[in-house]
């Protein structure tokens, strides 16, 4: 609980921002769903066959897992707010459509007969008699849809639409329960508050409610127009994957770009999502730059031939090939930084000192007494434990272990060897060392800014600015910066700025 309060206190600015995004996405989706579903349900009152089909269709739409729906939408509408809103609208359709349809169907036919006998027109009957009578049922559908939307909108963070889901994902990624809890609680509170507001709307005069909704719609539209109208002439959007390291890197990019061109507006989208989302976002100009690793490029974003794969077999510098293959896709991969963020075998510093361990080969002398805890995926990978057995001829007693638990297990002495990443903050936090991969088993992951070639051609001065980072930042330095952000809870912006100043990449008085 204390953790939670501290997290809220530290991040209240971000929390408010995310809350705003969450409300904006949810309300936009809800209003669109209402505008589609209610007229449709009214229209099908007199077309019972179509109604049956639509009920089926909206029912089926509802059963599509939300993550799958988001994935399916990416090829068509890219990433960001738009697909998130579309997915949420799709989910909200069923409860609103169903309740409106049933609410209208269930009206006592004598009211309809009375309205007809009094010579009411179709529209007058609808607005004066039918909709008011069905209103409680319709509103309960809207309420269901809204709770659903606010809950599902947490997934919007996966595709870079922001919102409260950002904290949940970040919390999971950093194994920070307080952060996850903050996101989840805020979403739950939001659902409760909105549910209550809808209840209130039902009780007060409905002209007042319509007025309130109109103000909200006006506000949403107004915000968009204002943002559009006041946007500076050029905005460069830089995004980063989930985690502290990309967060630090994109802040460095921002500082370097603004130093080179003070007129340019830089928007950062930290914790934007998984590799494929960022890659697609870049190719569709939703974002302009993001830091990517050479190993990932060869593994997920390009299809190197067998010969090329052999050429950069584990341990060899794969950056030139990655750059070459990306160029064919119309992407420019700038110069890489010094560090290699790859797999590592990790032991406690004291343990390394006692047995004089510097490299993986050094483990041979104590292999029988080693108890290792590896992530399931690492155990199964050719460039993981399988490769270690083959290339180093090492065999340990191995427990499979969830990645989030392995460092603590190592710290407590339950295991004395685990797999990790060379820049993990925990290496510093728990006083651990990564053993050198002396036989070159693990693939190389060198980070560099990725952008479209056309963007690079249009902005040569920015390319030059970003290339200042080339061959900077060692593994140890990255570890320290990750530690500062995820353990010491410093701001990524502060940490990035400090590094750039200290290493003369940024002029002090800016």
């Amino acid at each position, binding site marked *: 609980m204390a953790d939670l309060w501290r997290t809220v206190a530290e991040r209240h600015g971000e929390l408010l921002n995310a809350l705003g995004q969450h409300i904006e996405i949810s309300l936009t989706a809800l209003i669109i769903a209402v505008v589609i579903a209610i007229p449709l349900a009214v229209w099908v009152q007199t077309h019972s066959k179509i109604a049956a089909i639509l009920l089926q269709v909206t029912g089926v739409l509802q059963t599509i897992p939300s993550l799958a729906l988001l994935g399916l939408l990416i090829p068509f509408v890219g990433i960001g707010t738009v697909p998130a809103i579309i997915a949420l609208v799709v989910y909200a359709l069923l409860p609103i459509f169903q309740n409106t349809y049933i609410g209208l169907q269930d009206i*006592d036919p*004598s*009211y309809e*007969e*009375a*309205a*007809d*006998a*009094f*010579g*009411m*027109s179709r529209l*007058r009957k609808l607005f*004066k*008699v039918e909709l*008011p*009578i069905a*209103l409680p049922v319709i509103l309960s559908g809207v309420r269901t849809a809204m709770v659903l939307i606010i809950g599902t909108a947490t997934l919007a963070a996966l595709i870079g639409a922001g919102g409260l889901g950002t904290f949940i994902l970040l919390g999971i990624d950093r194994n920070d329960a307080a952060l996850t809890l903050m996101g989840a609680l805020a979403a739950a509170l939001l659902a409760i508050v909105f549910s209550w507001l809808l209840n209130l709307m039902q009780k007060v005069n409905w002209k007042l409610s319509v007025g309130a909704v109109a103000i909200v719609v006006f506000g949403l539209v107004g915000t968009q127009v204002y943002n559009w109208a006041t946007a500076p002439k050029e905005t460069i959007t830089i995004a980063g994957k989930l985690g502290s390291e990309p967060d630090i890197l994109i802040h460095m990019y921002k500082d370097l770009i603004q130093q080179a061109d003070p007129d340019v507006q830089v928007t950062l989208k930290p914790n934007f999502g998984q590799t494929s989302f960022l890659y697609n976002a870049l190719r569709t100009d939703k974002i302009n730059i993001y830091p990517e690793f050479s190993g990932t490029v060869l593994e997920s974003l390009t299809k190197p031939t067998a010969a090329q794969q052999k050429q950069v077999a584990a341990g060899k510098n794969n950056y030139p090939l990655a750059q070459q293959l990306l160029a064919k896709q119309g992407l420019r991969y700038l110069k890489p930084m010094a560090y290699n963020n790859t797999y590592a075998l990790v032991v406690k510093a004291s343990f390394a000192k006692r047995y004089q361990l510097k490299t993986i080969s050094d483990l041979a002398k104590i292999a029988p007494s080693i108890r290792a805890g590896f992530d399931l995926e690492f155990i199964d990978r050719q460039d993981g434990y399988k490769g270690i057995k083959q290339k180093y001829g090492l065999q340990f007693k191995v427990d499979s272990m969830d990645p989030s638990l392995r460092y603590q297990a190592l710290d407590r002495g339950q295991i004395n060897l685990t797999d990790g990443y060379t820049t993990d903050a925990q290496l510093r936090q728990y006083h651990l060392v990564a053993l050198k991969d002396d036989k070159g088993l693990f693939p190389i992951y060198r980070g560099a800014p990725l952008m479209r070639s056309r963007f690079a051609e249009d902005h040569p001065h920015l390319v030059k600015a970003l290339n200042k980072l080339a061959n900077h930042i060692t593994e140890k330095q990255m570890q320290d910066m990750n530690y500062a952000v995820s353990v010491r809870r410093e701001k990524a912006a502060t940490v990035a700025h400090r590094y750039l100043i200290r290493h003369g990449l940024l002029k002090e008085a800016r």
Partner: protein
Amino acid sequence: MALISLEHVTKAYDGKPVVDDLSLNVEQGELFVLVGTSGSGKTTTLKMINRLVEPTSGTIKFAGKPLTSYPIRDLRWNLGYVLQQIALFPTMTVAQNIAVIPEMKGWSRQKIRQATDELLTMVDLPPAEYRTRMPSELSGGQQQRIGILRALASRPKVVLMDEPFSALDPISRTQLQDMLLQLHRAMKTTVIFVTHDMAEAMKLGDRIGVMHSGKLLQVDTPEAIATQPANDFVADLFKGAQANQGLQVTLSQLAPFAVKVTARHTVGGNLTLAEALPLLDAHETLQVHTDHGSFVVNTHSVVAYLASAFVDQNTETE
């Protein structure tokens, strides 16, 4: 010229006539009652007049012109309608319900308000108290009063009433029948009233049309129906009504059956049996004050009276 006239009107569903070659004239200002058992076609006939149901053949004229020559909304604004289910719009207040048609006709707010208040006063529902009530806050009898006001509000030429009182309790029914007669006298609106209750027909109708199996058997004044029924069916219907009417007699008729006990509760001689029965149930004996003196009755008096009335009726038909 008749205000409403039906000429050889037939309505058939799947080839089976529900209303069969029916011709009828309803005159300006009369309270015309269509009476018949369920399935006789009386409600269908009524609904053809405001075109909720379209006839299969034949012509219905309103003020001399076929219904189809009027724009349907104008026609309906001139034909008030009262439903058995009452069907006050549940989301509207009493005043809003009454204002439904005047509003569509584009009356000013002030005129609507004035008309509403006048109407409410006429049916003994003080406007200040009832204007803003919701239908759910009213008793069944009060609801149907508003139902009738809603039909009358825009001063239509004709009011169509489809078994408006059959869902009400006997006391409310009597009250509303009296109220209807009073309103009819005051406003001179033409009323076509459908019921299955012959006693109600006899009480309300200036003229009565008796329907059976889609046919109109007899159209006449209540007196003519009682004295010269067209056939046995009409006669039986009338007799059944008289039996029911037993409860409509006043307590003053019970003088021959008075009992010699004392009573604590005193009532007027003009109270009907229907109204007195609950009181008898509560007090066992009632002191009845009439212009010709005072006497006491109990439940035995009532049973004795009904028995004698029943015997009288049977001897008449023999």
